């Protein structure tokens, strides 16, 4: 009964999404107030029904209702309750439902916080979001219904993939998806601007906080994914450049470019059509990412043949959304650009460079990710592209970018005299060079070209990010403090600096050793002695495990005891490596059990990962910067000003 209610609620949500998608757009075109008024209630109604459907599916999981096919395939009686809930988005059908729910959630947020928008414009934004929702609901109902029954019901389910039974991966998809879906708001703003033919600086001011919010969720989502891969996949890497990761990283890069280009559009009214194109690109890459990963087409073209209905729907949907947006763009965007000028040395130039470099990075990653597909279609040979390609292709545009950040953020709009800029940046530059040379030499005893380039870049960004906040702290009474926008920028760039240092040190000084160890034996890695003390059997709620006891000493002093596990999940009988990690702010020690080698020996992987925490810390600091920037006063000011204006006009009428 509950699943049928959920299914029915989805159908109702679809009909409301149709109303939400068609009537407000038509109303804005015909200037029909009644039709415009449909937007908000339709959006709220749609959200309520999707949320109800989502609740029904969650309930089926909690109740272990194995007469629902999706539940039977991805849950099990002994699965701990939190994982029964996170199993809802553990596979295709449920994660699609989560997409729809988040899309409806963002739409409701827009509907409630769009008081400052002109009514017709707000209605258009909600209308475009409604149309997107129609597409996703149709896809869910026609090809991926999560409520499909399985009669007769099996006595127990097939269990959730053990890899997903982890707190990190329970929260990673919702946050990542919140980011993905959030770019739909920027997309809808772009489409609405093109339909109305009206794109001014106010438009950019409305769009910015939404885009930054989506971006910060995506940042956290990607960082969580990387962290999860590090400790759960068992082998200590933090980024593998596999298609799934690239699919989330490309919208992030395009979104980062969009945030910066929106700044120019807001402050100077420039780069308008470019901003629109980036908004379309960021969302298109989100769509591409979701679908390509879910359909499995990136692994092989033949994945399409597995489920042609889904494949065809995906292609058609992508063609309509991306193609439609680009046609609208070709038609309307050329009339939008203004021709205000700027000098070669100005913030505009640096933000333009930022955009060019980020787009190049996106394109190179897209090329690498899709090339196996393209090559297979051309001559049928099967290739794969290894991580070193992505590392080089990414570093080429990113190295200049990290150096330019420091200059760009202290350059004035319109025109900047090089002299004062140079004076301002002299001291941070000296600090960066000295720290970049000394830190690797003294702490790690080795220097190299790439290492020093990376270290200087990291310290450089950190140093320049502190200029504005420090100046604000030391200002005279009565002068204005740093704005939240500027503080957010400084914090986010500070995060980039932490990230760059983390990446440089991890890639330069990590030590990794696969060894054969017997109980009682000791192996030394990077100055740490790893002693395998013993092995014992332990039982979890739905797995059995062999647990190793590894004591770590440094110069005879006890550091920590780690307990890496080799688990076997009972239902799927699949083995899983649970690494033992001793985390510290400046290094991780990592131990994973491999296989029994006979004669009581085990293969053991031991790793020393210096500064790896800075990678995720940097990402979280970037997201924090985004959060601070969205709290800037002027975004609220526009809202209250317009409210006042509308009450006034109300009184007059």
């Amino acid at each position, binding site marked *: 009964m509950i699943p049928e209610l959920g299914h029915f609620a989805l159908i109702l949500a679809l009909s409301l999404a149709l109303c939400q998608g068609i009537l407000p757009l038509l109303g804005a075109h015909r200037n029909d107030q009644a039709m415009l008024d449909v937007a908000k209630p339709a959006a709220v109604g749609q959200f309520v029904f999707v949320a109800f459907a989502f609740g029904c599916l969650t309930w089926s999981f909690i109740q272990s209702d194995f007469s629902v096919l999706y539940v039977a395939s991805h849950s099990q009686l002994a699965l701990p309750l939190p994982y029964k809930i996170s199993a809802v988005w553990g596979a295709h059908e449920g994660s699609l439902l989560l997409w729809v729910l988040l899309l409806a959630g963002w739409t409701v947020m827009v509907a409630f916080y769009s008081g400052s928008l002109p009514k017709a414009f707000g209605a258009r934004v909600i209308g475009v979001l409604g149309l997107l929702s129609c597409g996703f609901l149709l896809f869910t109902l026609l090809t991926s219904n999560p409520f499909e029954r399985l009669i007769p019901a099996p006595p127990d389910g097939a269990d959730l993939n053990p890899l997903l039974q982890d707190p990190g991966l329970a929260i990673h998809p919702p946050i990542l998806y919140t980011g993905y879906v959030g770019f739909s708001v920027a997309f809808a703003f772009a489409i609405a601007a093109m339909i109305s033919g009206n794109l001014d600086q106010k438009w950019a001011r409305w769009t910015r906080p939404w885009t930054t919010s989506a971006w910060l969720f995506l940042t956290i989502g990607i960082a969580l994914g990387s962290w999860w891969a590090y400790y759960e996949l068992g*082998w200590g890497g933090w980024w593998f450049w596999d298609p799934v990761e690239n699919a989330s990283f490309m919208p992030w890069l395009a979104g980062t470019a969009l945030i910066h280009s929106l700044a120019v559009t807001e402050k100077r009214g420039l780069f308008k059509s470019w901003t629109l194109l980036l908004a379309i690109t960021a969302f298109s890459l989100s769509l591409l990412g979701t679908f390509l990963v879910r359909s499995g087409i990136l*692994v092989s073209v033949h994945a399409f043949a597995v489920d042609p209905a889904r494949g065809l729907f995906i292609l058609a949907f992508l063609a309509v959304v991306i193609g439609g947006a680009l046609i609208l763009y070709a038609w309307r965007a050329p009339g939008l650009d203004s021709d205000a000028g700027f000098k070669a040395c100005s913030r505009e130039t640096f933000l333009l460079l930022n955009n060019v470099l980020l787009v*190049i990075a996106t394109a190179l990653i897209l090329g690498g990710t899709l090339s196996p597909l393209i090559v297979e279609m051309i001559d049928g040979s099967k290739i*794969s592209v290894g991580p*070193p390609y992505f590392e080089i292709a990414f570093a080429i545009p990113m190295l200049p970018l990290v150096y330019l950040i420091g200059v760009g953020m202290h350059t004035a709009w319109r025109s900047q005299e090089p002299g004062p800029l140079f004076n301002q940046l002299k001291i941070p530059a000296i600090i960066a060079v000295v720290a970049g040379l000394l830190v690797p030499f003294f702490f790690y005893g080795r220097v190299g070209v790439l290492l020093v380039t990376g270290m200087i870049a990291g310290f450089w960004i950190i140093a320049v990010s502190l200029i504005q906040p420090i100046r604000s702290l030391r200002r005279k009474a009565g002068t204005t403090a740093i704005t939240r926008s500027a503080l957010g920028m400084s914090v986010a760039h500070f995060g980039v600096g932490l990230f760059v240092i983390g990446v440089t040190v991890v890639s330069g000084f990590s030590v990794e050793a696969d060894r054969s160890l017997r109980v009682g034996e000791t192996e030394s890695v990077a100055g740490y002695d790893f002693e395998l003390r013993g092995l014992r059997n332990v039982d979890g709620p739905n797995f059995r495990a062999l647990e190793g006891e590894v004591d770590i000493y440094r110069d005879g002093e006890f550091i920590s005891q780690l307990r890496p596990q080799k688990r076997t999940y009972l239902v799927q009988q699949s*083995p899983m490596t649970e690494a033992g990690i001793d985390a510290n702010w400046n290094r991780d020690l990592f131990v*994973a059990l491999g296989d029994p080698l006979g004669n009581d020996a085990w293969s053991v992987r031991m790793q020393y990962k210096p500064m790896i925490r800075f990678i995720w810390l940097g990402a979280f600091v970037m997201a924090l910067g985004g959060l601070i920037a969205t709290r800037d006063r002027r975004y609220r000011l526009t809202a209250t000003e317009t409210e006042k204006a509308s009450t006034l006009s109300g009184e007059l009428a």
Partner: protein
Amino acid sequence: MKPRRQRMLAVGLTVAGIALATALTLQAFKENMMFFVEISEIEKGNYPEDRNFRVGGLVVEGSVRREIGELELSFDLTDYENQLTVNYSGVLPDLFREGQGIIAHGRLGDNGIFMADEVLAKHDENYMPPEVAESLAGHAAAQEAVLNSEQQGQ
């Protein structure tokens, strides 16, 4: 410097930078592109000689051999028709086991043994790497045809 010459210099530097970046990227792509080679093709000698490539197949039951207590091991891969011996040293992925479809990265040694520097098994019980699945399907069909014709011959 006159503004005109300044501009020319800027354009020149940009073009040179882009050319260099493109060259480096293409080089990186060429070096890191790995072909998937079927086991039957290796037997015919159709494989890249001085670079890494990928092979895939089923791990033959009972073929995993290692010296007791050592990390080095070897095993045989099959596509149902042909076999290839693979050497590897290191920790194996969780889902590596006999009978499982796997992919190995590495190169072919002079002795006809594949020296793997990476072994991949996907984290899903039902999942077979698509290249392997396809290669297996082809050879299974061929094998069946041979069996059928033998039966008809008798």
